[in-house]
């Protein structure tokens, strides 16, 4: 009898790219749902706009490159990028900004570098940063969380705002939106308001901004699930959160009125989303274990430095992009010792 020939191993493969992406998307959902709960329909609409943009851009570019569009869309990576970007965007962001950010992420940051697996920068974060530095006003107008929101918008009202910029009658942008907790904290600290005074504001919850801290909890939960499913390893989140927590605690210990306490940094802004979903993006993160620890620590410290002394209230995106650049270098110097080799050359040989 004749048989076709195949290459080894001849086993049922335990996982696939698509499966990994789907797990990440699934793990993102509790946090996204919390965002929806606290900040309203805008999150959902942003997710829809970003997803549609990402998938069509991905398909279009693959077609232009003469590749199979279906396999690229089928791996779910474009959808994941869209969702990650969408949960980071302000809920009432004009639709065309979401489209620009997503299209930039997929077309320029991902596909122009060669598509899945070849992009050196995290597409979602690059898209976010593009929007942040180009449209700072729109990008820093956040809705207050549901418990502080005197003017909750309906789905239709939200869609109207996003797609046509028409505000509901009697409402102004100022009445509708406010700065994010990190933003307001920065501004007030700059005005020499002490931390204990700032914390009296209704914007503050137990660890971070009200609403935010709970969305953060759900992202944390999703992230732990990813670690449990072994889709990501603990190295990046733990080192990133740990270093951020430690340095924040250190400064808080030195001057309790000028530097927010450690948990505030963890539960504010994009920290938890970034630690479990952004920095852990395998394509743009370090691959060696030691490298991942350095990568995480670097991001954690950079977030603190930018938040505390830099020009932006939140810094997850900048920190991640900065360390994306350092990945090849870190990877090169953190190669594991190979079996049977002496430890002296640090695993590298022939140099």
């Amino acid at each position, binding site marked *: 009898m004749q048989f076709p020939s195949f290459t*080894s191993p001849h086993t049922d*493969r335990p996982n696939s790219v698509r499966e990994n992406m789907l797990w990440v998307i699934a793990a993102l959902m509790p946090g996204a749902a919390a965002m929806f709960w606290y900040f309203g329909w805008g999150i959902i609409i942003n997710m829809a706009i970003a997803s549609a943009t990402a998938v069509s851009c991905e398909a279009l570019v693959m077609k232009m490159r003469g590749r199979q569009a279906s396999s690229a869309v089928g791996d779910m990576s474009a959808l994941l990028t869209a969702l990650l970007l969408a949960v980071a965007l302000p809920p009432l962001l004009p639709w065309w900004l979401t489209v620009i950010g997503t299209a930039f992420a997929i077309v320029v940051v991902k596909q122009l570098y060669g598509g899945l697996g070849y992009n050196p920068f995290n597409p979602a974060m690059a898209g976010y940063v593009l929007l942040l530095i180009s449209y700072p006003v729109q990008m820093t107008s956040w809705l207050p969380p549901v418990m502080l929101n005197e003017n909750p918008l309906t789905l239709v009202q939200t869609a109207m705002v996003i797609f046509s910029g028409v505000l509901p009658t009697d409402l102004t942008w100022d009445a509708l939106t406010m700065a994010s907790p990190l933003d307001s904290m920065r501004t007030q600290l700059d005005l020499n308001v002490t931390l204990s005074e700032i914390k009296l504001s209704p914007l503050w919850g137990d660890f971070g901004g009200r609403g935010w801290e709970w969305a953060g909890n759900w992202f944390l939960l999703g992230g732990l699930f990813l670690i449990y499913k072994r889709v990501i390893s603990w190295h990046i989140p733990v080192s990133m959160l740990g270093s951020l927590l430690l340095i924040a605690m250190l400064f808080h210990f030195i001057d309790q009125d000028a530097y927010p306490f450690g948990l505030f940094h963890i539960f504010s802004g994009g920290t938890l989303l970034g630690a479990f979903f952004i920095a852990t993006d395998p394509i743009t993160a370090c691959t060696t274990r030691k490298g991942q620890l350095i990568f995480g620590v670097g991001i954690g410290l950079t977030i603190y430095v930018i938040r505390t002394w830099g020009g932006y209230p939140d810094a997850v995106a900048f920190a991640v992009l900065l360390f994306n650049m350092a990945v090849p270098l870190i990877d090169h110097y953190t190669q594991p010792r190979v079996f049977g080799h002496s430890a002296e050359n640090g695993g590298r040989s022939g140099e």
Partner: protein
Amino acid sequence: MQQVKNSTQPRKLYRFHGGIHLPDNKKQSIGLAVEKARLPQQLIIPLSQHMGEPAEVLVKVGDHVLKGEIIGKPQGYISAPVHAPTSGVVTAVEARPVPHPSGLPAQCIIIDSDGEDRWCELPEKISDYSAQEPALLRERIRNAGIVGLGGAAFPTSVKTNPGPDTPIHTLVINGAECEPYITCDDMLMRQQAEQVLTGAAILRHIIGADSCLIAIEDNKPEAIAAMGAAVTAAGMVWAEVVSIPTRYPSGGEKQLIKILTGEEIPSGGIPSQIGFVCHNVGTAAAVADAVLEGKPLISRYVTLTGSGISNPCNLEVLIGTPANELIEQAGGYTATVEKLILGGPMMGFTLESDAVPITKAANCLLATDSTESPSSGVALACIRCGRCAEACPVSLLPQQMYWYSRAKDLEKTQQYNLFDCIECGCCSHVCPSHIPLVQYFRFAKTESWAKERETKASDRARARSEARTARQERIKAERKALQAKKKAALAKKKAAEKEGGSDPKKAAIEAAKARAAKKKTQMAQEGVEPGNTENLTDTQQKAIDEVDSRRGEVAAEMRKDEEATDSSEQKGL
């Protein structure tokens, strides 16, 4: 010295990096006791069933051979003989399809069985091996054609000869059998524990090891029990059965030694460098047969399994039996069969045809259907998830090696320690993009070897051409020197002429002139007509004589040149 521990104290075990848990799939083939496979009508015995040089044919078509008779003798040190697995007639010596990843046919001896299965005269039995010289036992193992039966098929006699400067403290008997599906070693240990243990004792005696560790994965409790009982019964205090965790690829020599002792074989090295010798359980049993009974290696246990085979089982198979006959004996294929694999699912390779013989290295025929071994389809791009590095038992970075293999940057792949890769397939197995990583590494290794050969060849060619240029220049220089010498001699001669001293050349010319004159008178006396070189004037004669003497000099010079060229070519320049 390696201490032998009391078996009541569990041995401290170590972990190697990476490795993977795989579904066992061992139950299917382990239900029945191992039977002898039916005697096939025709046996195909490849001449190359081992590492090293293929055996040299000793028989010709039409010869009648007896079971156990040597039909191919080893060529060189790293080689092994092959024997007739049964009695019969040699009907052909030709290239036939053999189980090899390349799928290329290879030289085989074809024997048509006469059905009598008659043994040839075997060497004397040795009952007390401990009274024998290790060298003699090694020779016996070599003559029996024993090679590593774990799959690598390295000649056992070579492995049991680490050399006088390499002390061996521990013999490791490998019963780990970590690939899924395969159970032939398990069955062997269950059914022939004593034989395996005797083989271990002989091997220990030969290599002079103090202790012996028999390592068995803990998914084979019966084998552990059987071997443990055999050790106790034999009162062999130096031997210890060690149950190790089931984790692929713990059956790899390097991984196994790491698990047992925490020691690592240096990169590119072999176990004996750090005092270990490792043999498979099947090899040990074959050694016992060869030493005690004088029987050569003509059969082995083979597992037939997978959902593509109707009645999975283990059979004791004569080397050279066609695979299709065995499958028939195991109830044939099921309707869903899709692939036929020789070896396990991780490191085995697919056979394009089942009309190939079982060789000494063939431990398993695995026929699978599409569900248990789906074809991986199109590979996606690497997403750098690092799972390959996590799974690699050698702590390599397969993803980087893949990158450089693809780019054909062979130097870089070697910087990433390509040649430490044991090709276990863990990285390919866990890759979410389904990239056939090991295939890339094999490719890069082959390319590197080819390149090295090329470099060597071009080095040789360059050396040759450099030598040629040097030779030509030397000849030129010599010629110049000769000319200069001649010029000097001429000047000297002229000077001497001027002084009126005697010149040998001139004397010779005078003598020739005298001879010619004498001849002339003689011829005139005898009335012979002179030829055109006779009756010459003095000037003519002088010119001829000068030409002659010059000719002689040139001839001598040319002889010298030729000699010089010859000797330089003989030096291999």
